């Protein structure tokens, strides 16, 4: 951080401390809402959802070979493969934009060209495993599923559209040598790796298993009653796998990368929850921003509500995962489900600072087209989703 921005930060904090009417009833209520929301996350979501998800993200970062994925982005790679890999590789390659942007610049200038590059640029931040898990847990599995499916479809369509619109000048790029991260030697079979990741995903599923509606019978209540026993059995199996299949170095790498994600994401998420709680409050508890404002802007499922939500999502910067508490607050304050999906689809992939960086790589015209495509598609997807699930 530069010295000047530090100074601005301190001056800003001072002015807020000096001028904000902290004893006003509205500010007090908002402040309490901020911490009530933080407590809700701490009690309901951290142990059963976030912690297992961090371990999975850490395992993917260490044990899934990046080289095997990246070779599909080379200039010689088959186009169909490039697009399909680009659209799903976000789940295994990237959690933060700091990995996405250099990779995007590389694919664009040296590799498979603008189509796969923009497909990757979109899918990278939108469909990582942490974001999808948290969306499904907190905002409901319907929205989580719609987000995952929407992100994959959007990535492919955006990439194809970009490649078609700019098909002329795509030929003018250099085909030099490319360097991908080292593959590293493998001691486990693919089956072992799959079983290991599957076990962790199952732990996540059962530990976070939602309480079924009161009075329901059959399989769901039975699973819910047994969920901790199943989780413990799975944990023992996982412990056995980790102890016998992995070397000491690999275990240390796994822990290191999991810890890296936690360090990076927990402070941001806690900050995001506090801000969302302060501004919007928990569902059913109004806070600083009046609920009528939100209802009149993004309530219901009109084309305007969806358009406003997707434009706002495109311009706003969401630090990793903070889009989830913010949307939770917005939904609680009366945002429609369609606009919520529109914001989720346009939000994480685009932001004002991000656009400036993309602009420096591929120029103003292509960046504007890229953003336009995403905003329009998000609006349409929101309209469709809103009319399917109703309000």
């Amino acid at each position: 951080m530069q010295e000047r921005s530090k100074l601005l930060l301190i001056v800003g904090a001072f002015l807020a401390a000096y001028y904000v009417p902290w004893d006003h009833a509205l500010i007090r209520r908002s402040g309490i809402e901020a911490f009530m929301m933080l407590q809700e996350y701490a009690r309901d979501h951290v142990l059963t959802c976030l912690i297992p998800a961090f371990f999975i993200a850490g395992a993917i970062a260490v044990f899934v070979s990046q080289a095997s994925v990246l070779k599909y982005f080379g200039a010689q790679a088959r186009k169909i493969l490039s697009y399909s890999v680009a659209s799903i590789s976000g789940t295994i390659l990237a959690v933060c934009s700091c990995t996405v942007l250099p990779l995007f610049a590389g694919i664009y200038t040296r590799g498979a060209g603008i189509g796969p590059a923009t497909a990757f640029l979109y899918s990278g931040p939108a469909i990582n495993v942490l974001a999808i898990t948290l969306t499904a847990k907190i905002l409901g599995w319907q929205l989580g599923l719609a987000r995952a499916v929407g992100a994959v479809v959007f990535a492919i369509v955006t990439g194809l559209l970009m490649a078609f619109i700019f098909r002329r000048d795509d030929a003018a790029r250099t085909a030099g040598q490319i360097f991908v991260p080292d593959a590293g030697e493998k001691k486990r079979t693919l089956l072992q790796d799959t079983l290991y990741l599957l076990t962790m995903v199952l732990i996540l599923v059962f530990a976070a298993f939602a309480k079924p509606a009161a009075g329901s019978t059959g399989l769901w209540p039975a699973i819910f009653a047994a969920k901790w026993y199943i989780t413990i059995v799975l944990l023992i199996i996982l412990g056995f796998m980790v102890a016998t299949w992995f070397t000491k170095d690999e275990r240390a790498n796994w822990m290191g990368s999991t810890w890296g994600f936690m360090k990076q994401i927990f402070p941001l998420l806690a900050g995001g929850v506090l801000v969302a709680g302060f501004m919007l409050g928990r569902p059913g508890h109004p806070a600083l921003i009046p609920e009528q404002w939100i209802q009149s802007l993004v309530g219901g499922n009109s084309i305007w509500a969806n358009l406003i939500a997707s434009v706002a999502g495109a311009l706003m910067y969401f630090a990793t995962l903070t889009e989830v508490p913010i949307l939770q607050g917005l939904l609680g304050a009366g945002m429609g489900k369609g606009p919520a999906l529109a914001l989720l689809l346009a939000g994480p992939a685009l932001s004002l600072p991000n656009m400036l960086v993309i602009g420096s790589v591929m120029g103003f015209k292509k960046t504007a087209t890229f953003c336009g495509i995403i905003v329009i598609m998000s609006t349409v997807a929101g309209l469709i989703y809103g009319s399917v699930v109703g309000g």
Partner: protein
Amino acid sequence: MEIKVLGPGCAKCQQTEKVVKEAVAESGVTADVEKVTDLMAIAGYGVFGTPAVVVDGEVKSVGTVPRKDDVKSWLVQ
């Protein structure tokens, strides 16, 4: 000797710069260590992943924080 650390400024890139500088200091080689943060300049090297280390125009590591001993072995060549 000219060493470039490629990376837009994430935590791993800063760690890499630190490791490289320490390795240079410990091995006593005279070398310029330069941090490259411009995305197009990074892409110009053809690296698909950061942090990356380039020694005298040759790409030595991509996508990981190199170990200090590895960096030293690049310096003596």
